[in-house]
């Protein structure tokens, strides 16, 4: 077994709307910030793994290097729906774990417009409003109501997720929004797909995040162990067969599979996790992922949000960054931004929103859509 892999430099730009920028320039900004975080120059990087969805055919990684240094290193451009950033990070992790390299860069970046995401399954004539709806809010609303069907989860309980994450974001200077949204405000916002109102849908923003990964030997050689974060598990999954997955895309089975594998690889369980950044693309999604990630027994997610267990100060704080709901969700960047958030807490550098005494954290992203399938990434990170 090869050495552990560490994150030695990591950062993200403040998520927002930067229509005047280019995708490579957003990527470059985060890459330089991550390099500065560990005091290294681009010429020390042996490979680049670049995640982006919107310009997936556009060699964003090479264009980024054209802005910050054309060192000739191999570049892998990856696209994997909302798990794109986590996929780039995991590819970087694998390359070090496999001892091909010992110092690499992973970047995730996205520039987005406003409005609904989703699709009609690639047909020539749109079936939207005819054979149903292919919007993302619809998919995750039906997943939420499936939870209601099984356990009686209420609209109010789903809405509480959004209240919590918006509150968390008021303490995060890199969040797109930093406003309190009381329960009535969330529940009375424009209904998009019942039970998700507009304030229960993630925010389409521009953003980028980057991480420098190194082998244990390299970390020691560079004298960077103090702030290094150990990757205890890096796991991905796709959607295993599920009864209704062809009618309603399934994100739970893939999450359960990746989480189970990640806990096994890390030799840890949910009880060992001090904070979680999970894929709250919609408020309903966060509820089902409490159970999918083993943070509570099946059927108890509604109680968990009611009791404040997942709020900052609770037993297992979830999305203290503000989450996708308020920090924002630049698709290709999200999977690395989540890792940045957890690393920041493990380093004790999270300021007002610091989870006290955090030693182990978990990140989760999941992507997919109607007629596409699912990509899930789970990372478990530990303070050194």
């Amino acid at each position, binding site marked *: 077994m090869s050495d552990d892999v560490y994150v030695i430099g990591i950062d993200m730009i403040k998520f927002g709307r930067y229509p005047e920028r280019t995708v490579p320039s957003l990527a470059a900004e985060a890459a330089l910030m991550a390099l500065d975080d560990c005091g290294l120059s681009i010429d020390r990087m042996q490979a680049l793994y670049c995640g982006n969805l919107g310009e997936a055919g556009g060699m964003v990684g090479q264009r980024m290097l054209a802005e910050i240094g054309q060192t000739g290193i191999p570049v892998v451009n990856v696209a994997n729906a909302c798990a794109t950033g986590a996929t780039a990070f995991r590819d970087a992790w694998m390359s070090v774990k496999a001892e091909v390299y010992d110092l690499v860069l992973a970047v995730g970046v996205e520039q987005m417009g406003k409005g*609904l995401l989703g699709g009609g399954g690639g047909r020539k004539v749109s079936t939207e*409003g*005819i054979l*149903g709806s292919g919007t993302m809010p619809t998919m995750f609303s039906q997943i939420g109501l499936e939870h209601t069907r099984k356990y009686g989860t209420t609209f109010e309980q789903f809405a509480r997720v959004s209240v919590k994450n918006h509150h968390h974001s008021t303490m995060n200077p890199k969040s797109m929004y930093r406003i309190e949204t009381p329960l009535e405000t969330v529940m009375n916002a424009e209904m998009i*797909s019942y039970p998700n109102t507009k304030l229960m849908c993630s925010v389409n923003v521009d953003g980028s995040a980057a991480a420098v990964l190194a082998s244990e030997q390299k970390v020691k050689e560079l004298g960077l162990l103090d702030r290094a974060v150990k990757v205890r598990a890096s796991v991905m999954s796709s959607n295993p067969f599920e009864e209704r997955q062809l*009618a309603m895309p399934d994100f739970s089975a893939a999450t359960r599979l990746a989480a189970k594998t990640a806990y096994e690889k890390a030799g840890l369980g949910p009880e060992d996790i001090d904070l979680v950044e999970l894929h709250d693309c919609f408020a309903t999604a966060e509820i089902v992922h409490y159970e999918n990630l083993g943070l509570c027994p099946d059927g108890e997610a509604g109680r968990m949000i009611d009791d404040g267990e997942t709020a900052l100060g609770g037993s297992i704080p979830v999305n203290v960054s503000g989450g996708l709901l308020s920090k924002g969700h630049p698709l290709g960047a999200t999977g690395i931004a989540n890792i940045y958030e957890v690393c920041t807490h493990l380093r004790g550098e999270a300021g007002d929103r610091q989870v006290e005494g955090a030693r182990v954290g978990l990140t989760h992203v999941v992507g997919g859509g109607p007629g596409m399938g699912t990509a899930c990434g789970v990372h478990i990170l530990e303070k050194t």
Partner: protein
Amino acid sequence: MAESDTAEAFAPSIASHIRRNEQGQPYLAGTKCGNCGHTFVGAREVCAKCYARSGLNPVKLAQTGKIYTWSIIYRSFPGIDTPFIDVIVDLADGAHIKGILKGVEADPEVDYFDMLVRVDFREVVPPGADEAYLVYYFVPLEDGEQNE
């Protein structure tokens, strides 16, 4: 337009699993795995559940079923009329399919779970299209109709 008389006489289907028999009667096409028994919507060569590569048989899917989950869509893509009720239906033969529930009011206070429905084929002009297509909706099962 070198198609057969039959093809010219009927509106084209909006999706490959919506078909017509030789008499022009619409049906939903599916595939039943002879190995594990799972019933899929649409045609397929290999079973995604048990990986069987033979014994996948074309079937006509059941015309009735029960709502498993739903959502009311108030905001869709530009040009799409809302609200409408998007439902995931467990068909009586075990297949699972998405569609729109017509014939009832869209009201989030209503409990749509387990409502019995039947497939209702119609010809409609989709938003942005210039001709009618064969589509299906779901409508509540009427008294006396069986879910089979």
